[in-house]
């Protein structure tokens, strides 16, 4: 059972790390500010979600696991807000106001 949990952790955390790598490659390669923001917010937040999912079997107690999920939920909310604010700012600047 613990072997299964460890294997799940390894797979999910590795996938999360790969998504972080993908987000950084997108950040390095994309030509536009808006598409860079897209790579930053989408890929990195999915990577964070996978890492939290992988860490859940390793969390010692129920409250520890709940706290991890709360960290992830709050990260989603804050990333959505910040990306929206930044993108709105870029959009308004392009349309000239």
């Amino acid at each position: 059972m613990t072997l299964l949990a460890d294997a799940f952790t390894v797979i999910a955390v590795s996938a999360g790390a790969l998504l972080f790598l993908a987000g950084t490659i997108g950040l390095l390669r994309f030509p536009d500010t808006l598409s860079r923001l897209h790579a930053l917010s989408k890929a990195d937040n999915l990577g964070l979600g996978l890492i939290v999912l992988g860490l859940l079997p390793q969390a010692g107690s129920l409250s520890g696991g709940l706290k991890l999920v709360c960290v992830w939920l709050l990260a989603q909310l804050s990333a959505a807000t910040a990306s929206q604010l930044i993108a709105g700012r870029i959009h308004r600047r392009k349309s000239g106001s």
Partner: protein
Amino acid sequence: MADFLIGTALFISAVTALGLYRVLRARIAVERMMAVQLLGTGGGAALLLLGVASGVSAANDAALLLMLFATFSCAAFTLGLETTPTENLGSEEESR
């Protein structure tokens, strides 16, 4: 398991530093703010991994604070740009 988690945390830190270097080199102020957001996500993930690997649950709180600070600074930055006229902050448009 702890070795694997610490290794992944180091990998994510390295990748985040690479992205930070790229974004901080940009001349547009908005892209520099994206660097702060990247620091919030990547640093938060690395802190969570390190916290579970070492059994220190306070690292979760530190990760939470890091992400909240990133969001609040982005919001404050946008609000500050709203009130000031579009002078030097957003005028360095890339010509590509």
